[in-house]
């Protein structure tokens, strides 16, 4: 009888975190390449910027000129936030702080979703959950792994900047500003993973929050001290800027992302404890018992699977476009009336030229955002393949070209719609205040659509890889976008050589509104996209599926 009364050492109530250690080891092993790549890219991004600024702007005078230019140009302010000092460090923090904070946020989002909702959706967590592993262990492991990755980024960035020769205090502040932003987005992703039933949906929610944070920072920075400047304080990326590394090092600001991390992570844990495995917060409803008449082609299927995502992107860029358009109205007044401001305005082609230059730069950003949408649609082909959803379709009377082309049509047409929505948002908000909706709406829709050939060219890289080297197409597709974004955002300030800037398709599209349009580069871009796409589809016809 005593044997019956004896209980195992582990019987009874266990912590929801049981098994985290073993899971963490597994996670670190699965991700070792991806983690190393992210950490490397972020570190290099920051340290190389510090290094090149040290070489490019040796004298105080050259730095003061640069800072004066930046401070009077809302366009640059909107891209990277305000600059707080004239030292090399302060310039580095200004130039790369926001991008690195965004990159750290993206890294955290990808890590956390991968180990929570993606595993859950694939059914792997069901197997793991049946072992002696607590309910919140996977969530904890995802967040801890992301936290560790951000910790390594902080150490390496600090070490790198110090080695380059920048002051240790400022280097620590900048590194921590980046790392804490990354940490906060690990918590955001953990919460998003509880809300959506699919990994794609969860990733989408978290990236939308990141994009909103960037836009708030951007709007607040462009508005400066007038009116809407406080918007910046609503944004984690704004906080990273407000740490003012190398220009006062306001350590207390770091408490904001840390406190937010605690709150959001607690919310995620609370949500996780209240739902079933595999479920989201929205309960499933019954749907149609029969396929609608139109659901009869691969294109109809691709559209059906992509339409919700398209609506989300359209709504997102509509709001972003409207925000940019409304800031554009204030560009002139933001500059004040100093003589330096007048010079800057004159250099940029007068008041209207300045506004146009700002809007053109924002169209470039929206073009990059749209390219992200197009790539995500193209890469959906790969996820259809690896999840074996493609098998029954390809085992029907649907040819591979037909199947592949269906998603490419959605990607191409969808990105045109996304761009038009961005232009519409900007045109409406800019036109309404300026009292010229009738002319501004078509003008800015046109300006946005000028980005379309570049969007297609970037997405075509993903198509090429999908056909010829499918294992690499996800990483390769996003890398292509990352390179284009790096050139677009950092190229001019870092004075990258023209041949390097030329690799980004976005370098070749006309700077609209305001710029001149020549047909040749647009035709070349579309041709390049067509050739890459054709090569990718030819590869798809020849290779094994799955």
């Amino acid at each position, binding site marked *: 009888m005593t044997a019956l009364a004896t209980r195992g050492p582990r019987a009874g109530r266990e912590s929801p975190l049981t098994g985290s250690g073993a899971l963490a080891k597994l996670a670190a092993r699965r991700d070792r390449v991806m983690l190393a790549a992210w950490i490397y890219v972020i570190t290099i991004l920051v340290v190389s910027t510090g290094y090149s600024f040290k070489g490019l702007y040796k004298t105080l005078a050259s730095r003061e000129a640069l800072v004066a230019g930046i401070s009077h140009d809302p366009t640059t302010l909107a891209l990277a936030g305000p600059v707080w000092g004239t030292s090399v460090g302060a310039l580095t923090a200004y130039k790369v702080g926001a991008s690195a904070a965004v990159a750290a946020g993206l890294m955290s989002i990808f890590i956390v979703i991968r180990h929570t909702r993606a595993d859950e959706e694939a059914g792997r967590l069901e197997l793991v959950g049946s072992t002696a592993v607590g309910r919140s262990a996977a969530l904890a492991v995802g967040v801890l792994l992301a936290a560790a990755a951000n910790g390594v980024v902080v150490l390496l960035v600090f070490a790198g900047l110090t080695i380059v020769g920048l002051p240790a205090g400022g280097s620590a502040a900048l590194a921590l500003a980046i790392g804490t932003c990354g940490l906060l987005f690990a918590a955001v992703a953990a919460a998003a993973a509880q809300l959506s039933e699919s990994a794609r949906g969860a990733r989408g929610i978290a990236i939308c929050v990141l994009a909103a944070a960037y836009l708030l920072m951007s709007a607040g920075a462009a508005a400066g001290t007038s009116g809407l400047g406080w918007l910046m304080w609503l944004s984690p990326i704004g906080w990273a800027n407000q740490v003012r590394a190398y220009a006062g090092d306001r350590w207390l600001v770091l408490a904001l992302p840390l406190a937010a991390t605690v709150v959001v992570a607690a919310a995620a844990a609370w949500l996780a404890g209240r739902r079933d495995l595999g479920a989201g917060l929205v309960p499933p409803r*019954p*749907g*149609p018992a029969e*396929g609608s008449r139109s659901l009869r082609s691969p294109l109809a299927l691709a559209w059906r699977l992509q339409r919700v995502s398209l609506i989300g992107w359209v709504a997102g860029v509509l709001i972003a476009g409207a925000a940019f358009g409304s800031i554009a109205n204030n560009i002139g007044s933001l500059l004040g009336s100093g003589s330096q401001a007048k010079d800057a305005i004159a250099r940029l082609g007068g008041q209207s030229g300045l506004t146009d230059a700002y809007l053109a730069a924002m169209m470039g950003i929206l073009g990059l955002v749209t390219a992200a949408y197009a790539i995500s649609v193209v890469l959906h082909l790969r996820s259809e393949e690896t*999840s*074996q959803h493609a*098998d*029954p*379709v390809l085992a029907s*009377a649907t040819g591979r070209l037909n199947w592949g082309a269906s998603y490419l049509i959605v990607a191409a047409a969808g990105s045109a719609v996304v761009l038009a929505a961005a232009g519409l948002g900007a045109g409406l908000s800019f036109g309404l205040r300026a009292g010229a909706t009738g002319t501004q709406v078509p003008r800015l829709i046109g300006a946005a659509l000028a980005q379309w050939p570049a969007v297609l060219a970037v997405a075509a890289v993903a198509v090429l890889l999908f056909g010829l080297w499918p294992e690499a197409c996800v990483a390769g597709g996003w890398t292509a976008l990352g390179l284009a974004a790096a050139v677009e955002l950092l190229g001019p300030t870092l004075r990258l050589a023209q041949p390097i800037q030329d690799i980004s398709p976005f370098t070749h599209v006309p700077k609209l509104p305001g710029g001149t349009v020549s047909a040749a580069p647009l035709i070349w871009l579309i041709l390049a996209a067509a050739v890459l796409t054709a090569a990718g589809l030819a590869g798809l016809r020849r290779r094994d599926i799955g």
Partner: protein
Amino acid sequence: MTEAIAVSGLRKSYGKTVALDGLDLSVAEGEVHGFLGPNGAGKTTTIRILLGLLRADGGTARLLGGDPWHEATALHRRLAYVPGDVTLWPSLTGGEVIDLLGRLRGSLDAKRRALLLERFELDPTKKARTYSKGNRQKVALISALASDVELLILDEPTAGLDPLMEATFRECVEEERHSGRTVLLSSHILSEVEALCERVTIIRAGRTAESGTLAELRHLTRTSISADLVRRPAGFEQLPGVHDLDLQDFTAHGPDRRGATGLGARVRCEVDSDKLDEVLRHLADAGVLSLVSQPPTLEELFLRHYAVGDQQEVPA
């Protein structure tokens, strides 16, 4: 006899891993053909080559008289496929998937669809993400069975079905056979194969181990014999076709029918079915006191073919 599927010497490697190593498969038009083999033997790879999803490295494969790689789209109008591990688009309902796949194939009989939904007791209004494995399997089965096609390729189609639904599945395949359709049925469920298939092909490690009717394959198996004998049978150990022999002395207690208490022999062995006659004659010569014989079971047949590492025991 026209062949719906004719595969010979099929080869396929993934890097250094050899999946198919000269596989042969022949399925006659109008037959239900069982396709068997242990996990990882290459069944799914073969099916994926037949569907034109993979390209064979060597050998030939003909499907419904055409080339499965070059004429994939045209051939796919004439066949329906049910994968072993059915994954569906989580946001579509079962009914939508059934209709979509049928339309992509080019044909769907609305009456049969309704009838099959009823027989398989599937609720078509549920989103695919809420279906269990068995219900996902039903979605793929209903879509395939409701299509007007010549050939059904079923890769372990009943893996997630309950016994009731499995019975329904068998009825459906019987009906398909009567209406003259060809079925390639990959399965692990032996009773299902025994009930449905005229001919079977057993593969192992990417090669065809055995192919023929069930009766032919049974012929290649062994009957277990256990007998009490009056005398030790002479030269029994040397008889061809006797395996796993266990020959023991045995004392018959008390007066037996022959009026003597003596030393007999107890024999247990496995006998190749085609050598049974000769072995029985030897046993009879030694004076049979009792005899128990067990016919070969299908399980035994498969176990012998599935078992890795005792290839020398597989009858040539």
